[in-house]
């Protein structure tokens, strides 16, 4: 199982994670499918995405929004790519549409087949057991406008992911509070850092903190 979880930030902040991703793909000119969290204006984000990865030598891309109707041909093509990237955005909205279109299962099968799945912020949270980390802290949470109750996500890893983390008291107190009720750690990463999962092994890129049963530990 090969995954890359990006916290967020500007593209140039994520260059080292990108290089790790290309190592994982282990292929000259791998193809990438870009799944936006929301199709609204996603062609603009898609073009930015292309420009960034083109500079890293990738030239084959598929744009596959899931909150609109799509044909089987583009779906089939998307899942034939080497890497699938889940973009950032509203985690609840993204989960709703991935689930509605049966994509959670498809993505898990893709990972099982050896495909590399990457996600940024919301996209990364979706790889974990649940999207509960999207719901706090109060001052920086996603709005659950669609009132999604079932927060179960892909459960590809045994930790929760907290993106855009800032090493501050107000973030820490929220994370400590939430970690008390969980039997798995929450890994909190500031923008520019992230987690690489290669064949079940975790590697941390950049700063990363673990919040587990009420305690905070710096792990990288």
């Amino acid at each position, binding site marked *: 199982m090969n995954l890359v979880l990006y916290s967020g930030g500007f593209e140039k902040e994520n260059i080292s994670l990108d290089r790790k991703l290309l190592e994982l793909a282990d292929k000259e000119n791998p193809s990438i499918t870009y799944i936006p969290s929301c199709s*609204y204006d996603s062609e603009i984000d898609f*073009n930015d995405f*292309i420009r960034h990865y083109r500079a890293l030598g990738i030239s084959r*891309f598929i*744009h596959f929004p899931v909150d609109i109707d799509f044909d089987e041909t583009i779906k089939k*093509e998307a899942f034939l790519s080497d890497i699938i990237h889940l973009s950032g*955005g*509203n985690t609840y909205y993204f989960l709703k549409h991935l689930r509605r279109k049966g994509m959670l299962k498809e993505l898990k099968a893709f990972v099982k087949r050896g495909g590399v799945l990457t996600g940024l912020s919301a996209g990364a949270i979706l790889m974990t057991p649940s999207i509960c980390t999207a719901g706090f802290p109060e001052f920086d949470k*996603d709005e659950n406008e669609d009132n999604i109750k079932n927060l179960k996500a892909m459960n590809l890893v045994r930790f929760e992911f907290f993106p855009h983390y800032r090493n501050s008291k107000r973030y820490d107190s929220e994370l400590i509070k939430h970690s008390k009720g969980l039997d798995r750690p929450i890994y909190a990463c500031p923008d520019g850092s992230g987690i690489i999962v290669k064949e079940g092994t975790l590697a941390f890129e950049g700063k990363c903190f673990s919040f587990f049963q009420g305690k905070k530990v710096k792990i990288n």
Partner: protein
Amino acid sequence: MSVKCFRLKKIVEISYNYSCMGTPLKKFEKRKYSKFHQVNGKHALQKKCPESFVPYKARKRKGGKVAFFNFELAKEMGLIPKNHEHEMNGDLEEKILDTFSIVIINEYDIINDIEFPEEDILPNHYMATRYLQLQHPNKQGKTSGDGRSIWNGEIRHSGKTWDISSCGTGATRLSPATHIQKKYFQTGDPTISYGCGYSEIDEGLATLFFSEVLRKNGHQTERVLGIIEFSNGISINIRAHENLLRPSHMFNHLKQGNYEGLKDIVNFYIDKQVTNKVWTELPKTQKAQYRYFVDKQVEVFANLSADFEDDYIFCWLDWDGDNILMDGGIIDYGSIRQFGLFHHEYRFDDVQRYSTSIKEQKEKAKLIAKTFIQISEYLITGDREPLANFNDHRAMSKFDEIFERRKNENLLKKIGVATKEREYLLQSQFKFVTDFRKVFSYFERAKSAEGLHTVADGVNWNAIFCMRDILRELPQILLHRGSSIERSEFIDIIKSTYATYDDLEISSYRAKKIDEFQSLYWKLVSKLSRKFNREESDTLLQIMMRSSVINKYDRVTGDSISNIVEKVMKRRPKLGANELFQIMHEFSEYQNLDPDNKRTVKVKKSEHSKMMKGMLQIVREFREGI
């Protein structure tokens, strides 16, 4: 000089923020809107074309409030300063109402000796312009024109003159109702609808949303400057454009054989195009100027008919030259539509007649262009020859030539070919592009076996293939696979929701067309790669990036605009002028399909108002409709 300018600018900034040389801020705020004073009914046409309008005195109309104001357009026109916030304030609202909340004193008022307070009567005359309209009983335009509009005047800013006109300012003698019923109507008479001289806010909103989207996508159009709302959904819809003259403003004089009236209006139009720097190479002699006028108008109408066809814009063009502006701008959005697919059998039902179809627009545009030749020759020789005498005129062949070139150019644009590459293909590979267009048209024009049927406002025969979908997805998959897609996959991508099972059968002819389409697509990539010395994958990638914007999934149609307006109307009491401007701005930006537009996504998706979300849903739902 530059130092002086800087100092002046500084003074303006200081005075803007505080006060200038003892001028109280309030007074300065008012001075910011002084340009509104120029919009007072006076228009150059009144002096130069005395036979082209009916003058009306006007009076203030009370009880209105500003429902919408187009801050961006007002800045372009110089009505408000460039640094003005996109927010309404008391002074601005007062100025808008003072300038535009007016109603004419019409024939009914005069005949019935209706008195109005003297202080409410405005000093100048406003004009209702005369033009030809096929729905009028008089087919020479003797009685037709602005039936419920007047021209507020003109304003000059940054080397451009803008015409401003308002719809819903009272019943004029030029409305069809007056001539059909042979009487003058009181403004607001509830016994008649169109002839009562009022307009409604939903008309203004439809024009607003549609015109801003079409403008962002490169079409000339009238624009909504503001909407003043009264009770019961009645409104004054203020529109502006650099030149609001229509061909029908000339055709009435032509039909009447009114040489002087025609000459005046043609000369007026030519002068304005030159003053506005739209025409830069006007010859010296009058004879040559009239020929130049023909060349320019032929160019405008050949290009617009190709553009309308390729952007699936249904605009009812006809022999009267109404429903369109001289410069090809769209006006009167009542029957304007943008289709999601090439529904080329759709006809609008106008009670007494069906409209032209989108495919017939070209011939109507050509007829209008031919009438310009007739006008020009009439003005040069003094003889009004029959229109048929100009069937073989050189300008008619030029029309076809321009039309064909534009059609090819539009296809390349839609595919995602960039400007420099397009130029090369149009210059050196014209036949190749034309061949591609033929196979493209085969799919674009395919219709459902279900046949002709009635729709809400006319008849249609559904198109079945969505060309935007294939143009968006094909380059991605070709690049991904490095080879063509299966025929069944081609149909899977291109099929629309209108297609029935039978419609999608891959006959041997259709199979051949699918193969031809892909083969030509690859050839196009190959030609461009060779010419511009690039890898084919790079060419495909560039096409793919452009195409993803040009052919984005969500694109407005006429039906979606109607539904969006309905939605806005329901929310209206809560939506003020500021909110409406923000929504319009965001919506038209979202519908900007120009791949060269440097746009960034500024608003976090989660922050979208419920209103915008609802509008997106509507666009999606009706994306393939009419």
